[in-house]
């Protein structure tokens, strides 16, 4: 399983992404990624409505990675010759049926993986109306996490996507998993 993470990114890239990034996610990486996507979709004649949805989802997906990118295991850093101690990836692909697919990947600790899985499954079980109500409750709860997140990112992505999240937790070692999240914009 270990070698498959970079391989997975390479496989996603082979699908000719509109934009992709592998490595540390900085504020500059996010700005460049968003600018590239906005320009590419606009040049391709995509509707402003679709561009806005893809853009909104990417903002949340990239900033989730930015705030929560955990340090990869030492053996991963060594095996892949990484110079940074952070690793995530993000790709945006347009599939043949016209659906846009955002895929992100990052390491998470086992305990985080468990709560993330529960959260995603909970959101996947809600209707658009239920997501809207949950969004309003969380918006008004005055809570910010220590990393500055408002707990709304996943709810917003689910609302904007209108599709269920796809996800996988690839076991990496006894402490962590590699989390792959897939968000579709139809």
């Amino acid at each position, binding site marked *: 399983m270990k070698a498959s993470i970079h391989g997975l990114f390479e496989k996603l890239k082979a699908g000719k992404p509109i934009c992709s990034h592998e490595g540390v996610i900085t*504020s500059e990486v*996010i*700005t460049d990624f*968003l*600018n590239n996507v906005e320009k590419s979709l606009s040049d391709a004649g995509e509707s*402003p*409505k679709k561009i*806005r*949805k893809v*853009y*909104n989802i990417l*903002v*949340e997906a990239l*900033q989730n990675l*930015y*705030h929560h990118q955990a340090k990869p295991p030492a053996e991963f850093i060594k095996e892949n010759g990484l110079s940074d101690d952070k690793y995530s990836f993000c790709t945006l692909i347009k599939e043949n049926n016209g659906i846009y697919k955002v895929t992100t990947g990052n390491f998470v600790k086992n305990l985080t993986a468990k709560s993330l899985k529960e959260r995603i499954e909970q959101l996947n079980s809600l209707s658009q109306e239920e997501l*809207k109500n949950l*969004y*309003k409750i969380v*918006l*008004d709860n*005055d809570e*910010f996490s220590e990393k*500055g*997140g*408002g707990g*709304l*990112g996943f*709810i*917003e992505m689910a609302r*904007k996507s209108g599709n269920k999240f796809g996800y996988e937790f690839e076991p990496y070692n006894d402490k962590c998993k590699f989390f792959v999240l897939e968000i579709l914009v139809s």
Partner: protein
Amino acid sequence: MDSINIEGTPKTPTISFDANTGVIEIKGRSIPENSIEFYKPLVDWLDKFADVAQGVVNVNIQLEYFNTSSSKCILDVFKKLENLQNKNRAEVVINWYYEEDDEDMLEAGEDYQSILKIPFNMVEMAE
């Protein structure tokens, strides 16, 4: 009291908070990684504004994009304005601008409207 004027960047909105005219504007994109850092001075300004505000306070919100951490900070701004009204300091009107085909932005405005007790005008703009 001093006004606040901040020029917009690709990730932060143009800000114009004018204590003399009572016009408060947030325009552009609000997608910073650290929204609290950006909005804290604005929320603090509104606390001071509560002592001098009078008449009508016009609030113009014209956002193209905003991220979810900004959405909480924008609610904080609105709550300060709601307080202003509750204390009978001023009459607050929020003008929420959205492009004509941007139903998501209209819905975002309606989400705020349902949480707050201040009047919202939904203003559609031709693209």
